[in-house]
């Protein structure tokens, strides 16, 4: 990770869910950090723990989840915050945008009610001031006819417009950190580009930290300063975005890049899928979670848990016993 004081820092975060079938080890030993004004990408497939990790930070996990490790925000321990601090932490210091704009808004409440409730609760704004601010925010996210939209219901807006509303809503109390969980996955490519551009601009203009969770390496590649690649609830590789793509060390990070069809290659290009299925997290791992699907795996991979190993100055780390060398870059 890059130097500087982190705004959000996770140290050895672990999350276990109690289920009728026994514990599920959703996240194990995850450490990452993001600075003010920077964008961090978290990449992984379903079950990698990328969303669960951030939901833990946002206190959105069900009561069946047990969280271990530390999460600090601006020096305060998020997981053990006193309730006086908690009361105005979520939705103020940290805000979150979710994957599906079609379901992120309450279908039976008008846009204005949904946009102003957070401001009114946290900052005690009057109804009118809150409405003025809501219009400003909708203009900030470039929603056409901002004032007119306030009286509308969510179903009267398109998916792209709704995601703008959700983003505007998240910005209501000037958060220092915005967590975006697959914010464009449910949207068309053309809308996706607009929304990602918008998030980019907002981050720079508002000097906000952005955590962009995505399964799409392409999305993260263009838009983030640092990347964390997760698999099976663990961090596989973590680096400045450029380094990760230029000098991939972890076989999973590389396999992920290779499995995506390349639009510049003509038809018939044989893809290199990752064999097998995602890992079963209901038993604690003795070795590398990726070992069963890894073409480079050796005997020790199944029995020894790899630790984060630095490359060069330490901003780039990978957790692999048999990493790829320089020659393996894409």
């Amino acid at each position: 990770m890059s130097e500087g004081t982190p705004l959000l820092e996770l140290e050895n975060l672990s999350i276990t869910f109690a289920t009728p079938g026994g514990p599920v080890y959703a996240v194990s030993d995850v450490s990452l950090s993001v600075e003010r004004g920077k964008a961090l990408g978290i990449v992984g497939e379903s079950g990698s723990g990328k969303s669960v990790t951030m939901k833990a930070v946002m206190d959105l996990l069900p009561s069946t989840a047990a969280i271990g490790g530390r999460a600090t925000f601006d020096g305060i321990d998020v997981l053990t915050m006193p309730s006086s601090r908690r009361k105005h932490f979520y939705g103020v210091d940290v805000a979150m945008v979710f994957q599906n704009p079609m379901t992120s808004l309450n279908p039976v409440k008008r846009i204005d009610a949904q946009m102003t409730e957070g401001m009114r609760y946290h900052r005690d704004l009057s109804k009118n001031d809150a409405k003025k601010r809501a219009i400003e925010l909708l203009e900030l996210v470039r929603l056409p006819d901002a004032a007119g939209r306030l009286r509308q219901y969510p179903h009267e807006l398109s998916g792209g417009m709704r995601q703008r509303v959700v983003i505007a809503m998240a910005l209501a109390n000037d958060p220092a950190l915005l967590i975006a969980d697959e914010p464009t996955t449910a949207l068309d490519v053309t809308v996706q580009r607009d929304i990602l551009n918008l998030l980019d601009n907002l981050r720079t203009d508002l000097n906000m930290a952005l955590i962009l969770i995505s399964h799409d390496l392409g999305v993260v590649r263009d838009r983030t300063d640092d990347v964390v690649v997760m698999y099976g609830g663990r961090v596989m590789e973590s680096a400045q975005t450029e380094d990760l793509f230029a000098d991939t060390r972890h076989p999973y990070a590389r396999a992920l890049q290779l499995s995506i069809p390349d639009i510049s290659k003509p038809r018939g290009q044989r893809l290199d899928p990752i064999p097998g299925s995602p890992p079963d997290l209901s038993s604690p791992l003795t070795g590398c979670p990726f070992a069963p699907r890894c073409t480079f795996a050796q005997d020790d991979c199944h029995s020894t848990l790899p630790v984060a190993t630095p490359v060069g100055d330490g901003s780039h780390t990978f957790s692999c016993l048999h990493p790829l060398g320089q020659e393996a870059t894409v």
Partner: protein
Amino acid sequence: MRFVVRSLLQLVLVLFAVTFVAFGALNYLGDPLFNILGPIALEESGPEYAEVRAEARAQFHLDDPFPIRYGRWVGDMLTGDFGRSYSNQVTVRSILADKLPVTVVLMVYAQVIAIAVSVPWALWTASRAYRFGDKASTVVSFTMLGIPVFALTVLLFWLFAIRWQLFPTRYEDETIGQRLTSLFLPAVALATPLIATYQRLLRTDLISTLQEDFISVARAKGLPKWYILFRHALRPSLFSLLTVFGIQVASLIGGSLVVERQFQIPGIGFEVVEAIFRDDFPVVLAVVVVVSVAFVAVNVLVDLIYTFLDPRVDFNG
């Protein structure tokens, strides 16, 4: 506009179907003449009463074929004339005017109690779904559903009116206060199964609403729990409850037959039970009409509330 037309059409169809069946059933299964004339209506009572019988048959049009009698009844009904009671010649309208208000108050009372208890209860259980309080509530609500209304009535009456004497044993209606006190136990008896039904339905809908993304969004906004429950989760969860609320109007009337009799409340439920035993067609049919109209009206109201609850519901769809 289409909504109004559709509602009226619905009303006409329901009224026709219900009254046709009721009119037919009463005519084929009962003997009104006996109720009009008493024992002399029977052939065995002797030929000397033949003339009286014939007169009565003519007066009450009992010899006309079924379609004509039904048609005449419908025609009269449309002009607001429900005829006279066979047994005491009092107009059915005055019977309705006399007895209906008590029953309406009783039913509204029961629904108000049911909603007032079930909604907070459901909110409470949904917010702690599958934990102890919720599981205990499930046992309680199933018990409430399982008790037959007549048994509950007896139990309530004995405990609260006789043993602890908290409520009057006889119906009193001098003042509004008396009326509400007298009707409290019967209303609770009627409301008990409703409370349990509404609580179950609303709890289930709330639990699934609480899984929705917009609830996570609201939580991520840092809004307090009670606010999310009341302002975000409640409204989109009311649909099943509302649908059943409309349908329950019918079963409430059934319940009032039992309850009014047991608490000796001079309502329409009490009256109709008597009328059925007497084969007093005009009274029974008038009640059937009133119940059908009330049922359709409440359900039209429910449709209207849908559109208010969810802006996506198309008023004219």
